[in-house]
């Protein structure tokens, strides 16, 4: 089940928690100091994506699955 993963660059602080859990799916843009999702992020299983979103310190990671708002990274 493919997901749509995005990161809000205004909220992200580049802590890199997502990169540590899924180094092939996220990377840090060092010019901006924020994480960006790569193509493999959309293919991660739902449990991993939920964990990554929940662990994001600022709730910057948004996961959309099958049209359902799966944002679990905290209240904005």
């Amino acid at each position, binding site marked *: 089940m493919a997901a749509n993963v995005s990161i809000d660059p*205004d*909220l*992200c*602080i*580049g*802590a*890199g928690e997502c*990169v*540590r859990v899924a180094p092939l799916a996220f990377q*840090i843009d*060092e010019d*901006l*100091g*924020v994480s960006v999702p790569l193509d493999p992020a959309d293919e991660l299983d739902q449990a991993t994506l939920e*964990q990554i979103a*929940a662990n994001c*310190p*600022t*709730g910057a990671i948004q996961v959309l699955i099958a049209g359902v708002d799966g944002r679990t*990274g*905290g*209240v*904005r």
Partner: protein
Amino acid sequence: MTEGLLQQYSATIVFDTYEAIRQALHDPNLSRSFDKRSYAEGNIRDGVVSISHGSMQRARRRVENTQFRAERLQLYERELFPKVLDELLDILIDSEQVDVFPVGELLSVVLAARRAGLDADDRSLEQLRRLVHYVDVFSQGAAILDAKDPDAVRALVYETYDEFERRFVRPAWERRARLIEAERDGDPDAEPVPHDILTVLLRHREDPALELLDDGRVVREVATYLQGGTHTSAQTLTNALDLIFAEGDRAEAIIERLASDRAFAQRTVHETLRLRPTTPKMKRRAEADTEVAGVAIPKDALVILDGGRANRDPSRFGQEADRFDPDRVLDPSVPRWGLSFGAGPHQCPGRSVAAGFPAPAHGTDADDSHLFGLIALMLQAVARRGVRPDPDRQPERDTRTERDTRWAHYPVRFERWAPVSAGSPSR
């Protein structure tokens, strides 16, 4: 000075369960600058990232987090620290009886100073001891709301900032400014610009989002990283030994296991952090009406997050959550250190330096990229020297604070200690 403190809140709300505190730490309406009036003019921590809120805090963390990338931490843990650790321990453990708390401070301050951006001489114990003195003062300042004499602490912190700036920050600042300029000019013979907090602050200082044009803010920010990088590590090393010694007849076997098993040393550090958080109670102020775990929180409420109790929440850490058990089995989604590094936007940036990456489960090998954290390396190093309780001298807690997880002195004995060798650092 205390008349400016906000003494009255619209409500005081306490959370002490793991999930509620975790939610609260992620709530953007709960600010760490919980008392804006006390953090206004003259505040000892004015403008530092750890008490800031909102877009400025995020902008600051973006540039500062660059110093905590995995490749930089690997350099610290695998190259720089092991060398410093052995050299310094050979000097500091110079007899059978040693106070281990200042040993932990001196070990920790070397890399904390380097990461903060201070050009201290690693081989000068006089300089390192001075830096540890600053850390001690800044730690009192960081815990000022739990201080028994806050006005005295405030005065001492101001005086110490002056010396800290004059002796360490200004020379490091001027050197980095020259190097950054040479780099911008494309000077091929220029010395490389160091990678540290002071450097990134200077590189990005003109960015208005960082709000760093005031020199004092730069000094306080560097001080924050020096203090944060030293204090928790030294206290946790000491707390780990205290918990191990409390195991009585089992202590010696635990120490022998620590000496040979770094993954166990890491789990021991995590278990220590869980049971003995450096900041047992975190405080937040509601910037706006909000709700956490079904509890309505009005604007201007004081929110107390009892992380010490949440770290013993049986729903997350089992029915024997009070027991010291580095091998305890946990759900992988629950950090072994509990909430001791905070969570959310103020999550400790140095967590992976101190405690490494989340420990692999007992019986599982760590992969090549794994980091064990500097405290585990310190703990293993003292275990290898045969650390034992000192039956003749009692440990002393830091009585200047209400926080009961802080030590002032912790005498131990070493079964294996090395005499000072030629060419060692000056005393």
